[in-house]
């Protein structure tokens, strides 16, 4: 577990430590079982190609879940993920590296909560953002509770 992040450590514009994922077909099958999403384009290459796709592609919601992990890894146990929004823009082929990235866009205190807004996204090996989104987290403050 990463060390605890505090509100005072965060500055607007700072980058969130990237989270690198390599979703293999095996991982997509595990996700299918865990999530209950058995659409065949995510594990059956022949089926995927018969629909015009180049191959098996990652579930959009697996990518959203990776981005949630990017945030929970970063904020530590004391922080809370309040809101996450992800758009399914591009597809990611199984076996291709996917890097989850983020950047702080705003920090503010509201109703006593120390909040941080971030832009987040997944990136393929060609540097294309396949799932852009945003997140709001509340963080611990060195001055007291979040």
């Amino acid at each position, binding site marked *: 577990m990463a060390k605890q992040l505090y509100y005072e450590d965060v500055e607007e514009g700072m980058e969130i430590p990237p989270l690198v994922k390599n979703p293999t077909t095996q991982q997509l099958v595990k996700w299918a*079982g*865990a*999530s209950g999403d058995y659409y065949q384009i995510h594990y059956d290459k022949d089926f995927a190609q018969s629909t015009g796709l180049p191959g098996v592609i990652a579930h959009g919601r*697996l990518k*959203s879940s990776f981005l949630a992990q990017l945030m929970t890894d970063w904020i530590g146990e004391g922080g*809370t993920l*309040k809101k996450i*929004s992800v758009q399914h823009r591009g597809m990611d082929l199984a076996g291709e590296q996917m890097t989850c990235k983020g950047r702080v866009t705003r920090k503010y205190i509201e109703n006593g909560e120390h909040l941080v807004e971030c832009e987040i996204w997944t990136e393929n090996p060609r540097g294309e953002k396949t799932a852009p989104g945003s997140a709001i987290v509340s963080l611990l403050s060195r001055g007291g509770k979040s």
Partner: protein
Amino acid sequence: MAQQGSIITDEMKKQIGVKGVPTVLEVEKGLIRMMAEALDDPNPLWQDEEYAEKSKYGGIIAPPALLCCARAGTGRGVQMKSPFPRALAGGDEVEYLKPLKAGDVITSVSHIAEYNEREGKRGPMLFTTIETTYKNQRDEVVAISRSTFISY
């Protein structure tokens, strides 16, 4: 807004706000472990009993992705209609209001929140937003999600 030639029919508009079929999900530790393994997410809050007990949660919690993104399915029993043959998921937005603890029983109910139509590169497109409210066994709202489906 409906206008002349709108693809959003009166019949479709009548479905806005109509609640779907409730889905009940028990947040079992085994399901949490399956999710954590599928995500390859080693966070001890999801799996390490001893660690989680000493945390502010006092026990195992589920990765936030468990709601909306998996299992507690969105849109069950909602009458989603579109004049177009092709459909894809546009995106998801989830607001988390309470932690999701192992042993919680979550009931989710969806409804169509809104329709939007837009002219795309390949012709008209319909955006349907499904809103889902998730409540725990104490009738507390733990999360609200908004998922957009695109048909064209």
